[in-house]
Each structure stands twice: as structure tokens, then as C-alpha cells.
């Protein structure tokens, strides 16, 4: 064997430069964006409805045509050729440009909507004015920056969803899942809330009004769902509002655990959720960028669980702040509520520690104990501190800092803006409290797991590389171990990219789900029993 060695510098060109048609498609797509950009610089378009339609149609057509050119001429199968040679998908120059552009957009969107043309108590200008006709058509109200964002978000999921379905057209699981995500975004996140807004003040709401409510968003993802103004809105609109409030509570305590028990957290994270939907469609080109090191895993566990504690504290504080003390006025008082929370947390904590302790890693156990102590201590403080100053801070301060740090910076600016740098599920992986809670349920009592196919694994690493959640799937597969990880969102790509058919997402019996043999098939029985004994 020669000892001749070179660095792995890849001198090759990208496998395929984009074709002429793709260049035209890019031009069309960018021209759609250009209209929006012109509007941002206060070019006032005469017929806004027409120009908006042209713009959105151009963006959609451009994206879809580009993808059609990319995939239609290839046979169905895995299409990752050259992913690591392309600047956009390998943290190269265009990746950074895209990251910076997205991040800038998010900063303007969240913190400087006036630059987009938002005018309080007056006619909108700029981009937002461009979207007014569509908003009026749906809800009857003028657009806001969130309506602009919602529209673009939905267009992105639809156009890139079609791209995704072409890319994985050999894989029915991926196609059906993507259709589901596209449906929930368009209907539940975009159209239904707008139509609900149209009902406000209507007689079926008894003259009351409903808050903007994306029905598929469950607490703690919609951490604001139990704030005073929303509760008032719900209660102001009679039976329908009350039913929605009850639905919001049932989603947390009943619907979610049952679905997660049966199907794992994927029913939400990769079939329903909008953040997941954008990550899977528009973010698909960046899934290989997630960090798989053990270091990243450790950071992930601490950060995501801290967010859960934070959101629980914050919500408790917010609800606490608007409850009264007088039992004769309303049964739920500050005291009853806090005691209720304390009991609930104690029950969950005790049950987990009694029955599922061995399934948690040691650090997760310490973490759980730590968090539990903190929450209990803070609740205890209530009884010693004066009113209004719950948990040492004012609840409004807590809410504002959560909304700023997690709701804006993490879920938007970093979560989506950093797709091209840190991968497409940064938010889901490190920040989303909902994913963490569902993951906790998945780890403890779900029928879901990824099974491995005997000894077929060749440790090639495709599964790990293309895991958007940064799970080192190969580490489990090459040991023949079932994969039961709380962070797994069940996107199914590890199974899709495996060249040996080793991985399968399965809902099966709980028995033996976690304690799988760390032994691969193929060895004779003696060796297997031997290793099993260890």
C-alpha cells in the first residue's frame, strides 16, 4: 500500500452548474422578491392587489420551476449529490449571505416594523400596504407585519414543500408528511385565524371577540395563550370562546400526551407544527449542517430544558398576576392556583422518579431535581413575599424577557435566520419548549422508536449527517440499538438516506423498546448470550 497522502481538499467543481432554465427560474423568483423590496423602499404601487399577486406568483413559480429543473430529469432516489460542494448548503459564501439576509429580515420584522411600512392608527405604507388587499379580503382588516410574515411563510412552505415532495418522490412517508405540513400551515395557521378574526363582534360570538388563535399551536409554544387579555377575549365571546379555552387546556394535558403515546412527538413536530414545517421545506437544504458532536448535545440538553423551566415559571407568574385573592368572587384564586401548580409538578416529578427513573440519564435526573427545587422554592416565596412581586420579579418583566429572548431572538432571528449556518432545526433543537415537553413524553412512554435492521449497518454516516436534530443516529445503528431519543422529531430522513435499509420509524409495543440488545445480528448464539450477560 502506498503511503502517499494528500489533504482532502476537493478540487472538483460542483457536480452541476445550474442550467439555463434554472437561471431563468431564479430571475423570476427574484423579480417577485424585488417587487417586495421596492415596496419596502416606499415605491407605491398603483394597483396593490395586482402587484402583490404578481409578486407572490413570481416567487412561487420561480421556486417550483427551479426545483422541477433540478429533479424531474433524475430518477427517483436520494438526491444529495454535491450538497457539500455547493456554497449555499455547506456554510460557504452564499450560505453566509443567506444567513445574514434572513437574520436582518427577522430583526426588522420583530423590532423595526415601521421600516416595513407599519403605521399605527393610520394608513399602512411600504411592504405592509402592499399586503393590505389580501388581508382585507381574508379578515377585513388592514395588514400588519405579522400578516406579511404569515403570507410569505405560507408561500415558502407551499413552494418549497413541492420541491421537497419532488426531491423525495420515491418515499411515500415523506410525501404524505409534507402534504400534511402544507395543509396545516395554509388552513390552520394562515386562513382559519384570519376568518375567525372576521367573526369578531359578530352575533355568534355574542358581540365579543376572539384573539388571533392558531388552533394547532399548543402551550408552551404559544406561551401567551393564558395571558389576561386572551382569557378576557375568550370569555367575552360566549360558548365558542369558552370551548376554545377548554380546547387549549385539553391540548396540553390530554390530546398531546395521547397522540405522543401512540405516534411519538412526530405527529406534532414534523406533521403539524409550522416551525417544523418551514424547517422541513424551506430549510431542507440545510439539514446536514446541524452539529452532531457530544458537546453540542450537552449544550442542547441544558438549554432546551432551561427554556421549559423558564416558560413554566413565566406562565405561572402571568396567570398568577391577574387572579384575585377572594374566593367568593371566583373559585380560582392566587393561592389555589399556585397550590394546583405545585401539586401537578409534584405528581409528574414523583411518577417519573418512581417509575421511569432508570430511563433518564444521570444529568437529566439532576436537572429534573434542580428544576423541581427551584420551582417549588419560588412558589414557596409567594407565601412570604408581598403581592405583585411573585418570583422576585414582576410577572410582566418575566413575560417581556421571555417574549424577547425566546419568542423573538431564539425562535425567529436565530432559529430561522441561522438555517444556513447551524442547520434547519436550531430552534426545535435548542429552543422549543414544546419539543422538549413532547420529547420528555416520547422518551418516557411513547410507542415510537426507530428500530435498526440487524447487522446491516455499515457505519457510513449518512443517517447522522442528514439528521436535522443533530442526533448521532449511526452511534445507535451500528450497535443495533433502538433509537429512543427525546429530540427525535420523526422526520424519517435517516431511514430515507440509509443505503442499506437499516432504519425504520415504528410504533410498536412498549416492551423492549429501550432495553434493546446492544448486539447485532449475525453472530452465533454463544457470542450473543455472552455479550448479553455483561
Amino acid at each position, binding site marked *: *500500500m502506498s503511503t502517499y497522502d494528500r489533504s482532502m481538499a476537493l478540487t472538483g*467543481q460542483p*457536480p452541476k452548474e445550474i442550467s439555463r432554465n434554472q437561471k431563468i427560474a431564479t430571475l423570476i423568483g427574484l423579480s417577485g422578491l424585488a417587487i417586495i423590496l421596492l415596496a419596502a423602499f416606499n415605491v407605491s404601487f398603483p394597483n396593490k392587489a395586482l402587484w402583490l399577486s404578481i409578486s407572490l406568483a413570481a416567487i412561487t413559480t420561480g421556486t417550483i420551476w427551479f426545483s422541477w429543473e433540478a429533479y424531474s430529469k433524475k430518477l427517483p432516489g436520494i438526491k444529495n449529490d454535491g450538497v457539500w460542494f455547493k456554497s449555499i448548503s455547506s456554510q460557504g459564501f452564499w450560505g453566509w449571505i443567506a444567513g445574514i439576509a434572513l437574520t436582518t429580515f427577522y430583526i426588522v420584522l420583530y423590532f423595526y416594523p415601521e421600516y416595513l411600512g407599519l403605521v399605527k392608527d393610520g394608513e399602512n405604507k411600504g411592504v405592509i400596504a402592499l399586503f393590505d388587499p389580501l388581508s382585507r379580503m381574508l379578515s377585513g382588516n388592514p395588514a400588519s407585519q405579522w400578516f406579511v410574515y404569515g403570507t410569505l411563510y405560507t408561500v415558502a412552505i407551499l413552494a418549497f414543500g413541492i420541491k421537497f415532495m419532488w426531491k423525495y418522490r420515491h418515499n411515500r*412517508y415523506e410525501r404524505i408528511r409534507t402534504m400534511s405540513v402544507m395543509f396545516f400551515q395554509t388552513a390552520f395557521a394562515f386562513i382559519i385565524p384570519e376568518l375567525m378574526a372576521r367573526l369578531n363582534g359578530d352575533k355568534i360570538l355574542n358581540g365579543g371577540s376572539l384573539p388571533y388563535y392558531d388552533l394547532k399551536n399548543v402551550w408552551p409554544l404559544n406561551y401567551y395563550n393564558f395571558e389576561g387579555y386572551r382569557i378576557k377575549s375568550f370569555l367575552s365571546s360566549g360558548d365558542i370562546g369558552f370551548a376554545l379555552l377548554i380546547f387549549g387546556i385539553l391540548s396540553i394535558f390530554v390530546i398531546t400526551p395521547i397522540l405522543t403515546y401512540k405516534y411519538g412527538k412526530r405527529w406534532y413536530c414534523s406533521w403539524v407544527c409550522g416551525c417544523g414545517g418551514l424547517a422541513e421545506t424551506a430549510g431542507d437544504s440545510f439539514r446536514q449542517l446541524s452539529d452532531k458532536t457530544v458537546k453540542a448535545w450537552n449544550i442542547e440538553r441544558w438549554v432546551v430544558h432551561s427554556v421549559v423551566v423558564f416558560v413554566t415559571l413565566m406562565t405561572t407568574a402571568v396567570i398568577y398576576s391577574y387572579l384575585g385573592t377572594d374566593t367568593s368572587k371566583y373559585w380560582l384564586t392566587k393561592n389555589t392556583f399556585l397550590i394546583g401548580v405545585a401539586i401537578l409538578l409534584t405528581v409528574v416529578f414523583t411518577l417519573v422518579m418512581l417509575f421511569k427513573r432508570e430511563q433518564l440519564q444521570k444529568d437529566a435526573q439532576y436537572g429534573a431535581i434542580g428544576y423541581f427545587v427551584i420551582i417549588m422554592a419560588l412558589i414557596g416565596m409567594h407565601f412570604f413575599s408581598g403581592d405583585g412581586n411573585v418570583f422576585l420579579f414582576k410577572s410582566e418583566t418575566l413575560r417581556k424577557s421571555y417574549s424577547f429572548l425566546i419568542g423573538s431572538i431564539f425562535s425567529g432571528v436565530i432559529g430561522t435566520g441561522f438555517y444556513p449556518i447551524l442547520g434547519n432545526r436550531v430552534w426545535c433543537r435548542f429552543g422549543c419548549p414544546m419539543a422538549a415537553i413532547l420529547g420528555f413524553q416520547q422518551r418516557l412512554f411513547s410507542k415510537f422508536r426507530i428500530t435498526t435492521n440487524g*447487522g446491516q449497518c455499515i457505519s457510513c454516516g449518512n443517517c447522522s449527517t442528514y439528521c436535522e436534530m443533530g442526533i448521532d443516529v449511526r452511534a445507535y445503528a451500528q450497535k443495533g440499538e433502538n433509537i429512543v431519543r427525546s429530540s427525535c422529531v420523526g422526520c424519517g430522513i435517516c431511514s430515507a*438516506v440509509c443505503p442499506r435499509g437499516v432504519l425504520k420509524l415504528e410504533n410498536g409495543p412498549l416492551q423492549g423498546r429501550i432495553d434493546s440488545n446492544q448486539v447485532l*445480528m449475525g453472530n452465533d448464539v454463544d457470542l450473543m448470550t455472552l455479550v448479553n450477560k455483561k
Partner: protein
Amino acid sequence: MENIVIIGNGIAGVSAARHIRKLSDKRIIIISAETDYFFSRTALMYVYMGHMKFEHIQPYENWFWEKNRIELVRGYVTHVQPQEKQLLIDGSRAIQYDKLIIATGSKPNKFGWPGQDLHGVQGLYSKQDLDLLEVNAPNKETCKRAVIVGGGLIGIELAEMLRSRDIPVTFLVRENSFWNGVLPKGESQLINEHIKEHHIDLRLATNLKEIVADENGKVKSVIIAETGEEIPCDMVGLTAGVTPNIDFLKDSGIELGRGVKVNRFLETNIVDVYAIGDCAEQHEAIGNRRPIEAVWYTGRMMGETVAQTICGNRIEYKPGHWFNSAKFLDIEYQTYGWVFSERNKKEHEEHFHWRHAAEKLCVTMAFDKDSHQFLGINTFGIRMRHEVFDRWLTEKRKIDYVIEHLQDANFDPEFYKNYEHEIVSKFNADFGKSIKPKRKSIKRIFNLKPQHH
């Protein structure tokens, strides 16, 4: 403390090291001339294709080795001197061992073709081969056409790699149908078609006569034996199988055949010297297996076995039922048990073959003509569950039982179309049976209650 030295950091050597560490506190040294760290050889193709970077095909992070106290030495072992229990690296540095494990793998075959050592001619096995491919065939401008000689698994992978960069490929296959020494003809035919779908210029029943050099000693063209046709090309891939990489052992006193001769305990003729993986050769073949098996998982299993022996629990290498898998461009292939090609089929072996009318999917099952015992299955484009077939083979199930319970063995992702009903009706039609497929049963699949028969 005992000093265990392992030559070769492939899957066999590394599995041995990992298991020795699990079982003991011995000093472990792995020597490799190829790379600093273990990587998955079978994944080299994905680096060239841009699916992964080289670091992604390394299964362990770089700190893993130090943490597990596995010492890594980069160097080429030139001599092994069993009398002194030492070996020489690069002809000079000596390393002592108490126990030596040889796990040096394979090298590509060369059959003495004229021009086989020219620039631009290469095999595909090592990391260095991949680096060389980046020189020989970085893109379609530098490499206007590549010719691949030899129709096996590495050949088709190399073709897929080059096609991923749009390089035109001519594929010379000696047999009259691709891999038909291993695959039954229906399957071989399916792969022929699939190769052509990928715009690969497949030449069956074609032999290489010679490789022609240009004035710089670089490959210019190849000449075909049968027709005398000259095909201009910038790169020639030699993929006609591999042989054990054992030249450095020639005067060591260790008994060699094609590979390092070992007994069932993976011991060589010299005490405290073992050989595992691609380079080990059994004195007698185990079952239907070949004496030398250059397969990823057998390397792994031999590593696990030798680790037991070295840590005081001397056990035989006893591979279970044969299985394997591969991917032909877009078609996944799995095999469990034995399905022989027409060329190697035994008298009593009967085949049942099903192929989908439009899609590239097919299944072949082998069974005993007289006893109807199920012998094995080849499956293309349908994933099957290893555990279930392993169990059925152990239980010596009849073919009818396997056909009836086929749904239990399906391992395709959810929502995939199932073809079991079609397969069963084809079987019924072929053999005049009236088997009704049993519905999939979670209990049976996960073997929740022990089955008796």
C-alpha cells in the same frame, strides 16, 4: 500489562480494539498507514459524491481514542518478526507486542493487463485511492470519459460516483449479464436495465485487452479484446475484486494462502498472532461461506470474537446465517440465507421469482425442491426485516410459511405500497398453491410470545 498490537484501523481492527477495551485493561495500539483515524470504507463513495465530508464518515469523534486509551500509530508495517515478538514500522521503528492482530484488509486485484500501472489507472479501496480519484477524475472537463473494468459492487459504485459529476462512463463487464455469478438472471437483468437508465455505457461480455498510454505515460485509451475497439478515456477504474493485503508478511513465518491462514479461533500458525477481517483466510470454508470474506460485518464479528479470545474466553468464530446488502445506484438490495445464481445453483435448489410490472422491484426466494425448506431470499427495492428472516432460517421454516407470513418481514417505511399480495398470487400461480397471506402481526414480528412449531 499485556501489549496488544493491531495492524490496520478498519472495522475489524477497531472492533477488536473496542471490545478488548470493554473486557480488559490491556494496552492497545493500532497501527495504520492509511489514515489517522478509523473511517467507514464503504462510505468513501459518498465523500466523492458530496453527500458527506470526510469527517462525517468517521464514526467516532477524535477524542474517543484517547478517552478509551487506544493508542494510534501512523506508519506502514514493513516486517513482522514473531521470534522477537516485534514488528518494524517503515523498516526502522520497532514495536514490541505480546499479542498481535493482523487486520490489514484488502487491495484491488490486478490481472497483469498491459498498462495497468499507468497514471490515471486506479482501484477504489483506500483513502489514498479516493484522493487519487480527485486527481484523475475531478470533473468532466479533466476526465472526459472514464472506463471501469470489472463488474462487481465496487465497479457499480465507482460508476455511480463518476456519474454524480456528470463524467461519461463506459463499464466493461466480463460476464454476459451484470454480477450474474452471484445474482439469478432476473435480478441481474433488472440491474442491467437500471445501469442503462443512468446513462452508463454498459458493455456486457466484454474484456479488456490493454490500456494505452499517451506520450506522458498517462492513460489515453483502452482496447477491447473482443472487437479491438479503442475507447479514448482519461481514467481507468480497475474493480475486478480484491485480494488480502499481506505482502509484508511474506518472510515472517506466518502461514499464508491467499490470505493469512487462520483456524476457527482466528489464530494463525504462530502463537499469539491472530488475523481477522478481509485478510484472514479460513482453512476450511464455514458452511456456504467463502474462506475469505471481504464483508463489513464479518470483519466486525471477527473483531468481537478475537477480543473474547484474547481476553481469556477462547471462542470459535461462528458466523450465523449469511446476509448482506448493497445499493445498485438507486436500488437497495438485501439478501438473507442463500440464493445462488444459475451458475452456482445446486441440484435441489428451486427458485421463485417475482418482479413488479413497472417499478424496479423484485424478489427471489430459494427453497429445497424436496423438503420445501426455505433457503434464502434476495430482495431489490423492498426492505426486509433481518431479525425475522434470521429467525425463520433458524427455525427451518417451509417456503409456504414464509410466503404466508411475508408481511411480518416487511421493513419498508410507513405508507409504502405493499406488494405481498401480488407476490403471494404469483407464487400460487407458479406452484399451483392457494396460500392466503397472513396479516402483519406485531406480536410475531417482535417475537413477544415464543413461537412453537
